[in-house]
């Protein structure tokens, strides 16, 4: 304490004028307030990060819990759904249910004639799993063959994203003048009595200007990084790339500068669709009151459309950057206008295993895998952990050996989890030859991982039981083991359970060691036994987060929400247990 004494004597206020003293006190109080503020900011920062994290995940997860379907009226014929013309279950199993849906879609869009477009209509709009709904209905009731009924057909992930508004921003504007189309199909000219397209023209110009600006910036950045490089191939390549971008920008700027006349629209600019008279036209060039375009869905007639009966739909994301072209979007718009599109809670997300198709992927495989793994972990680590704690706390002699065991356990609790993965790989897989990817091995590794946690928590719980209980039991003639197992252990049980649940929650969220023992394989089937190949929920999250499809991002976040819900429930139970059974002696 001698080092503290010196500054304090120097700081004593003797010899200061009252003003100076007051000023110094003010300064000290300001420092006090500042220090306090830092503390609050630190707690606030942690809370803010938690809120941002959870809000971000929930926001991203929301779309995963809903799926978009289109209600199609289907009439399965015997030739389509039966392999041998009989209504037996075995012959119905192998039927071509895709053909049923294909026919139904073609009836909805009679204008789609050529094979390529028909294939697109089916493949780009509907999920590959859509026909499962028809199959189920027919298998459940074979008398439906030849009859017409409606089924909800699952949309493909891209179409689903479009309806969820995640593919492109979409805005609508009603027409103000009367619009006169020149024809019903092919390339047509639209003439309005008002300057309806001037706003679109301005839009397009603005988009052009923005693109040109960002292209210029990109080129500058490239040139800067090129300048940092030594002269050579790499530098020349970057410079060439920059030059190309500058040329593109110049082209855009030139178009921007040109006034009057029609402005062409291409796939690198936001799409403009005109919806009129049951048809949809994609605009290819814009004037102020006149536009030309290609008909994507045929118009009913060439009748002039009155103001308000037609509209211009803008899709912000240029066609070139989208997975769905304007044609497909036009079909989707038509389906929606017919009132066939519905959005429903995605039970599929909870009842199916993994899939390469985002709209069909679910977390059931991960959930069951996690449950099996946790079962193995619990069965192994609870008895061993409690046994070790009882021995160390109640029976172990205090000597260097038990001291070493104690230090060892404390250190084991801080060993990086991936090292346990190395242990599992080297010992369980390579030495004992246990199966890869199996919940059995995962459970073993996680049991070793949470063992120190459970031992430490159990020891604390045993230590909290007052010695009087033990002495009382011993006093009336119980043996040491009887005193421990009959009296101390039951009283320590709530504490042990709390520690175990927290340890299990930790194990449930653990990913890294499981990657090393091969639980990263793509597994569609839901595991049925602890030796089946399986994946667990956190690993499923990791696998999905790596996939390029935008729809999987939502699935990832959705799986995270499910995982967090389980963790919160487990932690909640632990807190409840602690509150309910916590005893003060």
């Amino acid at each position, binding site marked *: 304490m001698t080092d503290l004494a010196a500054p304090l004597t120097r700081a004593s206020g003797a010899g200061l004028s009252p003003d100076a003293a007051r000023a110094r006190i003010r300064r000290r109080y300001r420092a006090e307030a500042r220090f306090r503020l830092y503390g609050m900011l630190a707690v606030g920062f942690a809370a803010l990060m938690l809120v941002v994290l959870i809000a971000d995940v929930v926001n991203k997860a929301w779309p995963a819990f809903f799926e978009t379907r289109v209600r199609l009226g289907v009439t399965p014929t015997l030739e389509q759904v039966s392999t041998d013309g009989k209504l037996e279950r075995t012959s119905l199993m192998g039927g071509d249910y895709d053909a049923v849906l294909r026919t139904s879609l073609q009836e909805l869009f009679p204008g789609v004639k050529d094979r390529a477009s028909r294939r697109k209509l089916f493949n780009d709009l509907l999920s590959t799993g859509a026909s499962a709904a028809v199959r189920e209905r027919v298998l459940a009731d074979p008398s439906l063959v030849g009859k017409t009924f409606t089924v909800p057909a699952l949309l493909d992930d891209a179409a689903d994203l479009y309806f969820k508004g995640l593919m492109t921003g979409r805005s609508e504007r009603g027409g103000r003048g009367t619009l006169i189309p020149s024809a019903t199909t092919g390339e047509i000219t639209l003439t309005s009595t008002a300057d309806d397209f001037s706003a679109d023209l301005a839009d397009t110009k603005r988009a052009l200007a923005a693109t040109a600006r960002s292209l210029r910036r990109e080129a500058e950045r490239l040139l800067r990084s090129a300048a940092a490089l030594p002269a050579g191939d790499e530098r020349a390549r970057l410079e060439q790339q920059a030059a190309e971008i500058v040329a593109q920008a110049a082209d855009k700027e030139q178009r921007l500068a040109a006034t009057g006349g029609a402005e062409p629209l291409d796939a690198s600019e936001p799409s403009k669709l005109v919806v009129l008279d049951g048809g949809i036209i994609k605009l290819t060039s814009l004037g102020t009151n006149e536009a030309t375009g290609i008909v994507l869905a045929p118009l009913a007639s060439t009748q002039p459309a009155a103001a308000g009966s037609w509209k211009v739909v803008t899709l912000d994301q240029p066609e070139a950057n989208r997975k769905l072209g304007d044609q497909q979007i036009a079909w989707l718009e038509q389906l929606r206008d017919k009132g066939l599109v519905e959005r429903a809670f995605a039970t599929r997300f909870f009842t199916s295993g993994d899939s390469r198709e985002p709209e069909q992927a679910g977390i059931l495989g991960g959930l069951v895998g996690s449950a099996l793994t946790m079962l193995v972990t619990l069965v192994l680590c609870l008895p061993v952990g409690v046994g070790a704690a009882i021995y160390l706390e109640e029976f172990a002699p205090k000597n260097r050996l038990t001291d070493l065991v104690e230090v060892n356990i404390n250190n084991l609790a801080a060993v990086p989890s991936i090292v346990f993965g190395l242990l599992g790989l080297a010992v369980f897989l390579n030495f004992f030859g246990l199966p890869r990817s199996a919940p059995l091995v995962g459970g073993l590794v996680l049991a070793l991982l949470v063992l120190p946690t459970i031992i430490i928590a159990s020891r604390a719980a045993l230590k909290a039981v007052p010695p009087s209980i033990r002495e009382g039991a011993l006093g009336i003639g119980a043996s040491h083991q009887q005193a421990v197992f009959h009296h101390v252990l039951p009283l320590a049980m709530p504490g042990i359970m709390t520690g175990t649940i927290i340890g299990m929650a930790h194990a449930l969220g653990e990913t890294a060691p499981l*990657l090393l023992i091969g639980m990263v394989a793509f597994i569609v089937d839901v595991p049925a036994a602890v030796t089946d190949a399986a994946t667990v929920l956190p690993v499923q999250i990791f696998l999905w987060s790596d996939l390029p499809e935008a729809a999987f991002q939502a699935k990832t976040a959705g799986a995270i929400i499910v995982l967090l819900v389980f963790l919160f429930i487990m932690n909640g139970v632990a807190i409840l247990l602690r509150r309910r059974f916590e005893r003060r002696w």
Partner: protein
Amino acid sequence: MVAVFFLALVAIAVAAYLAGRLKGQRLVAAGARLHSLPTYHGLFLAVACVIPMLAVVVAWTPLAPRVVESRAIAALPADLQPKSELEHDARLREARLVAVGQYAGAPSPGLAAAGEAYRSARAAAEVLLLALGIAAAAGGFVWGSRQLAPDFRARNRFERVTKVALIACSAVAVLTTVGIVFSVLFETLRFFGRYPWHDFLFGLQWSPQIAIRADQVGQSGAFGAVPLFVGTTLVMLIAILVAGPVGLFAAIYMSEYATPKFRAVAKPVLEVLAGIPTVVFGFFAALTVAPFIKSTGEALGLSVASESALAAGLVMGVMIIPFVSSLSDDVINAVPQSLRDGSYGMGATRSETIKKVVLPAALPGIVSALMLAVSRAVGETMIVVMAAGLAGNLTFNPLEAVTTVTVQIKTLLVGDQEFDSAKTLSAFALGFVLFFFTLLLNVVALRIVRKYREQYD
């Protein structure tokens, strides 16, 4: 089969317990005064049955596959008899596939015979195991029941077994450490047999992919781990720069300023943050923070890699905040109130007391908390796997992509690997470095905490 065996085990144990207890009760009814309660007679008898049965399994497990395999090989016709170790293994693998019916295509007659021999030998082995187990249990039962008598010390016998079981439980924790040390040590030594250790520890170039072809000329110099150490250090430093001040200030505020009401809200917040799985933080880092940093950086005219060390480090820092704050909270609370009271008595403000009395007194504890946080940051895997890169850039620029030790371990060991290549073994060498570095930090930190606690207790 395993299930049948263990069901039999449980059934025999229950039956033996009941029989033993019944015998004890009969002795009591006959007017004898027992040394141990009838329950202990039952427990003793159950243990007497279970132990021999388990011993049979332990002895049988390594032995049985050998017998089965030799039978299968013997069943092969002369022209298919293996001539080398490698061929031996290949034949066995094929026979096993035939036995379980997963052999692709039609097996040759010789192979089919081997498969059949394998299958029947295995079935026989399983039946034999069950029979031997039951026989052993029966032997134990007979021996055990002979022991039961009024003055038999059944409780002491049973308690001795329990104690051994408890000691075995404690040994598991030690064995885990031993297992870790040996599994990484052996592979590491094998790796250093192929690749000089000094080149590994001090080499500046990391590109393990080169070594796939052993005949390749540029193989040497590919396993220089310095870029990984630098990358790990960079990410860890960023994380500690976030978690250190925030965690420490949060702990100070919570223990010195916060009202009980505030603490009741803030503590769960930190606990929830601590309970979030690292894969979730990784998702947040890769899909939210990294794009945000990239776009912000580019708006400022900086070139930012899409997998920057900064994003991974920041999110890792957030992850460690609760860790630092709860450890610091403990050490700050351990500072005796008398030191604070003395300082207040001298007219110091709260912040002056904290800065000049509490923190210096708690300093060793805080340092050890930070050391544990460093060890946590170095060993963290998922955040860096998802948000940091794979290329071993030797750089200290936080806006560039770096790779870390844990990322490389994961990358080298996930997926199909031949277990004998230098590439795979190098992952164990990295694991070895990681394990001993964190172990060192932990041992030192825990020792400081321990020593320091005793000072005030």
